[in-house]
């Protein structure tokens, strides 16, 4: 088993059109269990990189392996399955599906992935559907949320609470990798640190690799490794 969760060499992706943005990364490696702070301003290509890592976009043929899997060799539905089986996503805001309850939102990945469903049940200790809910509730509790919220509509929650629910959804069923795209940017300054600590704590406990993208360099102090996206990429026109 490779020690790398992400192993990228000579990746090139070009958005269609004459002035399409071009992303070019000579090398990007992430070890298993690392906490990587990926810093970049908007427009620097971070959305593109995240979409590539998530298997939503396909680069031009290159060496790109995520969790020992060559994503470029998979069909689009196989990539969809891979994504949900192994990766949890956290977005900046509007993370939750408005017409589902809190618990249903947390359990979404389990509806699409057998693997995560099994692992969520195992963590609860038995194989019945009832314990899926218990699994979700426990996770919410570990993230500092009152379990009473589990059955409520997500629209009743504050932004901070919503982000914790989103974190629970990313964590349920023990994915191998969590990709977080500016998850604290919509929170108040004092809440940001709190949220980050809780997230990092959970990732440590579950031994989940975390790639955390943000433009706010002050948050970098929480992470063991900071990567500057500009330095990582070559923009069009520059050479290595």
């Amino acid at each position, binding site marked *: 088993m490779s020690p790398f969760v992400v192993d990228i060499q000579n990746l090139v992706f070009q958005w269609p059109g004459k002035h399409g943005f071009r992303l070019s990364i000579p090398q990007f490696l992430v070890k298993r269990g690392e906490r990587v702070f990926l810093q970049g301003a908007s427009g620097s290509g971070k959305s593109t990189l995240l979409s590539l890592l998530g298997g939503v976009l396909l680069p031009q043929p290159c060496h790109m392996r995520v969790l020992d899997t060559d994503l470029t060799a998979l069909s689009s539905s196989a990539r969809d399955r891979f994504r949900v089986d192994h990766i949890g996503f956290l*977005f900046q805001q509007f993370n939750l599906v408005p017409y589902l309850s809190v618990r249903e939102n947390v359990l979404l990945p389990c509806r699409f992935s057998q693997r995560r469903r099994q692992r969520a049940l195992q963590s609860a200790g038995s194989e019945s559907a009832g314990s899926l809910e218990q699994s979700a509730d426990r996770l919410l509790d570990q993230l500092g949320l009152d379990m009473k919220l589990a059955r409520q509509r997500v629209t009743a929650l504050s932004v901070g609470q919503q982000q914790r629910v989103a974190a629970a959804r990313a964590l349920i069923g023990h994915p191998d990798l969590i990709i977080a795209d500016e998850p604290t940017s919509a929170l108040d300054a004092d809440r940001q640190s709190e949220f980050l600590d809780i997230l990092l704590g959970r990732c440590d406990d579950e031994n989940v690799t975390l790639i955390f993208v943000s433009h706010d360099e002050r948050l970098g102090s929480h992470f063991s490794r900071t990567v500057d996206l500009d330095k990582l990429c070559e923009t069009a026109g520059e050479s290595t």
Partner: protein
Amino acid sequence: MAVSIALSVMLLLGVEQLRTQAKQSFSQSISGTDLVAGARTSPIQLMLYAVFRLGDATHNIRWSSFQAIAEHPAVAWAVPISLGDSHRGFAVVGTNTAYFEHFQYGDHRLLTFVEGKPFADIFDAVIGADVAEQLGYHVGHSIVLNHGAKGLGLAEHTDKPFKVSGILERTGLPVDRSVHVRLEAIEAIHLDWQGGAPMPGVSIPAEYVRKFDLVPKEITAVLIGLKSRAGVFQMQRFINQYKGEPLLAVLPGVALDELWSIVSIVEKSLLAISALVVAVGLSGLVAVVLAGLGERRRELAILRSVGAGPRVVFMLLAIEGLMVVTAGALLGVLGLTVLGLFAAPVLEAHLGISYSAGMLSAEAWRLLLLVMTTGFLVSLIPGYRAYRMSLADGLIPRL
């Protein structure tokens, strides 16, 4: 959203139901009568004047012809009808009491009296619901007949007034607009008339007419009921080939269907309009869902991130659309039934239209299915749009 679909479905099915039921009740205008006979003319014309009191009879038929028909072994009953006079715009029908025993309409309903009873005295008159309502008549009222067809403002038979003996319940048929009197009375009031005007110098007072022979010499049409339905064509042939004078016998059902086809262009237009309304409703649904898709891009991105492929997104949107259409359709059916239950008595009382709000006709179910199928197909449009958006946006929509 579902409500606007429900309303348009209600309109479509309502028009369909009314159309079907109107046609049915029209073709049952004289159910129970096997044949209508009169002077030889076109079948539709015979139906128009004999049943609907529209237009004039081309010719009368002799009493002897009526007797020949009535005495035929296959005939169970024969009711003579005489037309020609009017009363303040309403047609006067000369007949006998057998009319009230044998005339049926709709679901084999007999004429019923809301006041009074059939004629006993020679100058009794039984009036229809419209006549009573518009002229404000009650049992015991005295009326005078006009000579000749309605609206011509011709001379009146003032010396021989009639008395209203009964008022019929509303039927929704030309019966409501008729004044029924005895055949003998028609003869009586024309005794001292000749060529359409009173004979000068001759005047026979009312109390003396009863002494005359008042068997009519001519009548306009005959309603015939047979002992066995199977013999209807034989009877029709007998009448058509009658040697005494040129006659015509018509099967009411057949002639009524032909008459209805004249109206068919109206009913088809109505259906087309309601179909248009449904189309508008469905287009509205698509427009609203499409417009709302912009708001839902983040939701779709979330679904993509938890493993939903673009095809799943497509199906999600398509099924959402289908559910709205189905909910709207069912709501529409429910709404129509409830509305029908409340409206039926009003329609009956004020317009004479009998509407039964119960089961939908087969045609209505077919229309409903068509609406739902179209709704599903139309939902594929936002589904496809969401599919494309999802492909383009991936996990992180550009907003």
